[in-house]
């Protein structure tokens, strides 16, 4: 059938030319019979499935739509072959067949109509409007020339801007890590006493909740860094208690 009709190269070209599985199916049907009323659905199903099989043999990547159609047709074929009395509640095989035939006919009709529509005389090509228009320049009325697509695009643009805009940090309320390192080192080097972490936060960072939170988080991160490098020790007596920090003694370091 199909394999005999089409060489391997042409097979690939053909597939690319099809605008979806229904169109492929339609063209197979038209090859079978001119009158779509007389096509054999089972034969058509076989042709389609062998087409898809061939495509996978050639390791062509078929779009999901083609595979979905293949699975539907396989199902349809099995329903046609099954005795009629089982599965009464679902669409009968003949209804499904009719439905498929209807869709094929409808597509073929719209394809014919598309051709005929574009064969019609067209404005600016086959017939014309008046070429010249008077300029009565005294009373010119401004007319806005905006099309709907422009408004839709403007709206889509605003929304996509809002969704896809990169995250921006408001720098003023972010306590930087090197700031935190400096203030920790400034405090802990003075003595060997424990210092509470919240005491390290500079005064100007204590005037709002947001700032305190940011400074606290950065100071904590910085303190971990200092512990990791072996310059400081961090201590917490029990969960949720305040963190204490002190610089590591030379003896401790040994």
């Amino acid at each position, binding site marked *: 059938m199909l394999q005999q009709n089409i060489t391997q190269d042409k097979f690939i070209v053909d597939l690319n030319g099809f*605008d*979806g*599985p*229904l*169109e492929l*199916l339609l063209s197979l049907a038209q090859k079978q019979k001119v009158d779509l009323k007389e096509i054999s659905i089972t034969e058509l199903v076989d042709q389609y499935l062998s087409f898809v099989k061939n495509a996978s043999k050639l390791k062509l990547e078929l779009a999901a*739509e083609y595979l979905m159609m293949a699975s539907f047709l396989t199902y349809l074929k099995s329903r046609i072959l099954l005795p009629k009395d089982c599965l009464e509640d679902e669409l009968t095989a003949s209804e499904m067949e009719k439905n498929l035939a209807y*869709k094929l*006919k*409808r*597509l073929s*009709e*719209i*394809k*014919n*109509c*598309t051709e*005929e*529509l*574009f064969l*019609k*005389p*067209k*404005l*600016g*090509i*086959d*017939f*014309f*409007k*008046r*070429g010249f*228009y*008077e300029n009565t320049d005294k009373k010119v009325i401004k007319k806005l020339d905006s*099309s*709907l*697509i422009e408004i*839709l695009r403007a709206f889509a643009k605003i929304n996509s801007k809002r969704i896809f805009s990169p995250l921006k940090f408001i720098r003023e309320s972010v306590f930087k890590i090197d700031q935190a390192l400096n203030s920790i080192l400034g405090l802990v080097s003075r003595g060997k006493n424990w210092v509470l972490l919240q005491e390290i936060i500079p005064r100007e960072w204590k005037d709002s909740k947001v700032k305190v939170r940011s400074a606290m988080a950065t100071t904590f991160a910085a303190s971990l860094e200092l512990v990791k490098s072996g310059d400081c020790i961090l201590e917490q007596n029990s969960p949720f208690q305040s963190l204490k920090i002190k610089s590591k003694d030379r003896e401790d370091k040994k």
Partner: protein
Amino acid sequence: MNFIHKNENKNFSSSQDNLSHLKNEVKFEGEKILEAIIFASKEPVSINDLKKSCPFIEDINESLKNLTDVYRNRAVNLVKIKNTYAFRTLPYYSNYITQTIEKKVKLSKAAKETLAVIAYHQPVTRTEIEDIRGVSLYKGLMDTLLETKWVNIGPRRDTPGMPVTYVTTNDFLDHFGLHTVKDLPNFKELREAGFLTDFKDEEFEI
């Protein structure tokens, strides 16, 4: 009705004749004003706009019909495009007109087919278009069609989800020389064969 004009009608004498003569004059003047407006306008003029410009015309549809008759046998015709009027040359004379073609829209095969689906099945939802064509619309296809101004957004479908619908425009009709959607090739046949479901006659057919 063609070309009743002043000089031809000078011989009336009785007062009754005179009255009907005057009435004809008024009608004829009205038609000429319509002619001037439509001739001078770049876009097809809607009947409503014509009414607004000429509130003194009693029966605008009759006047427009008369004007259409005047031009019936000319190379330039007054054509009705849905609820608008415009002058257009007959396609028959296109060979003699060498005009730089202003705007040649080149649509892809898929776009042409989608346009046809919208024209025949309007108002039609995206899902319905995809169902008829058996393939999903590629990105940017509806963009292109809306940009041609041949397609517009129609009323939302009154079904769950209230999907957006698409319809064709007067520009579309004008471009393909159609008066209404019913003039589409094979429209009647398709409708009778049951391929066009849910088609509603346009509301403002005048």
